[in-house]
Structures are given as structure tokens and as C-alpha cells.
């Protein structure tokens, strides 16, 4: 199981009997949502895909960045080599 919020991504491993043990916490750069699991790179390990919201206090504007955390296959996910999908958004997201 994985849950996400502001501003961490938490990974829990299940034992099949409704018991979950937290095995990883990844600190995120901003509030995030829309968490999904899929093996995007086809290496046999499920990856995590979500949207991270960036806030620019100077302009009071928000923008979203799609993020892929690559699965290691042991229930944990890469912390240093995430892939970022950055649309060219020039207008603030409405909050």
C-alpha cells in the first residue's frame, strides 16, 4: 500500500492478513495527489505515478508536475532518480 499527501509518500508492505508495515517514507517537494501504480518501464517492478504541486510564493501561483518513482522490486522506490513530466503551464492552477 502507498499513501501520499503533504508532503510525503509512505510505503507499507502487507502480510496478507490486514497487517501493514511502513518500510519507506519519501519526502516530497510539495503537496501531491492522484497516486497510481503501474510498471511504466517494464522492468517487472511496479512504479508509482503521481502529480506534485509546486507553489511559487513570489507569484502566488501553482503548477503541477507528473512524477514517476521507479520501483526497486523490494517494496521500496527510488528516491534520487525520479522522472518528472513537466507540462508548459504558464497560468496558475486554480485553488
Amino acid at each position, binding site marked *: 500500500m502507498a499513501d501520499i499527501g503533504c508532503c510525503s509518500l509512505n510505503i507499507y508492505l502487507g502480510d496478507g492478513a490486514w497487517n501493514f508495515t511502513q518500510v519507506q517514507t519519501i519526502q516530497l517537494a510539495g503537496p501531491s495527489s*492522484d497516486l*497510481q501504480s*503501474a*510498471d*511504466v*518501464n*517494464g522492468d517487472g517492478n511496479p512504479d508509482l*505515478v*503521481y*502529480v506534485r504541486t509546486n507553489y511559487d510564493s513570489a507569484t502566488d501561483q501553482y503548477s*503541477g508536475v*507528473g512524477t*514517476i518513482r*521507479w520501483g526497486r522490486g523490494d517494496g521500496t522506490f527510488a528516491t534520487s532518480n525520479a*522522472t518528472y*513530466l513537466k*507540462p*508548459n*503551464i*504558464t*497560468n*496558475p*492552477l*486554480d*485553488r
Partner: protein
Amino acid sequence: MTVADFNNDGRLDVALLAGRPCHPGCGSATLDTVWMYKNNGGGNLTLASQTKFAQHAGTIIAADINGDLNQDLIYYNPFAMGIYPQLRPSGGFQYAVGLGNNTLGTQGTMPDNGWDVAAVFRDVDGDSRADYAVIDWGSNQLGIGIQTGGYKNCPPPNSANLAARICGIKDGATVTSSVLVRASGNSPAGVNQLQVWIDGKKRYVKWGDQLAKKFTLSSGKHRITVTANDKYIGWQKQS
């Protein structure tokens, strides 16, 4: 955001929405735009297209709503600020037809009740075409939309057990040109991937529960197998 194979190359692509999950008219009109990222393999994704939706968007769902075996995008505005669903003055779910190359074409409106907060797309009447169910927050009703148009491919097995079905070529058939394989799969939770194996080698991967694919084979006897994969309970095959 949603993950699906938008160009039928067997790799999962990403569609990223910059929407307006809020009341009608809020936010910048330049939003409601979806960016389609093509998966090139090896963890490399590149921007393939950018499409402006015609209406207010809060959530996107990938499904093949016209039966052409390409993933389309359906969008609606389920909640504003996570509190209230918003009536869409333009009415209903919106869709953008996927062209099978990580781009979107024709856009339009699907019938619904306006205050929709959740939706699922699946063939519920066994005719090979995706239907849908929506929850209407305003009327506390569950609406069912049965697909009566679009293309038909391969009526699936019933959903009681995980199973694959080959429709397009009969066992022992003799063909003189390329072989068109039509197949489907079903299971209690739904089949998320079909694979075509020919003479023991994997030749094609289709994300979804319907496929139609032509293969050119050398003369002689060949064995064609289709596997249906369910992410929870494994796979089954038919040859």
C-alpha cells in the same frame, strides 16, 4: 492523470491533466489541457501531444468508448476543492477520441446526470463494447450507460472466471494471407492485458480486454495462443 497504452505499442503511456477542479468558470480558461507522454521504453518518456479540452475538466479516465481498440479519454469535474461536485452547465461527461498514436481527435459529450462524482467503464452486457456506470451526487442515483454504437470486436467470456477467448480465427483454419487475430478476455475484476503468442513466442501485447491484430506468418502450421491477464489472480489462455 491516468496511465494507459495510448499508441498500442505495449508500453504504458501517461496522460497528465492541468484541469480546473472547481466551480464552473473558475480558473484560467487556458487550463483544461492534457499532455500526452509517450513511453519510449527504458524509463524514457517524451511529450507527444498537447490538447485543449472543450469543457471544464477535473478528472480524466482512459477507456475505449468507441470500440476502435484505441484508448480514449473521458473527463469530468467530480469535486470542487474536494467538497462539492459541480453541475456542468455544458452537461455531462466529455470525451476526446484517442487516435492510437498518443494524440486526441474528436471531442464530444456523453449522456449523464450532471453531478457525477465517480465513474467506471467496462463491458457489462457482453457485446465487446465498453459501457459505463456513474454515481450522481445530486440525485443519489447510480446511472448505467449501455453502449449501442461503436465497433464490435470479440464478445468476451463471462466474468465468473478468468478466461481468454479467440474469436477471429477458427482452430485448424487454413489461411492464404495475413492472419487477423480477434480476441478478448474477462474475469471477476476485469482483464487488464491480452497477449498473442505464436509458436511459443510472444508477438503482441495489448493493454485492455479486447484486441484485433494482423500477423504475417510463413507457410505451414502455426499455433496461436492468447493469454488474458488479471492483475490480481494471474492469467489464462486459449489456443
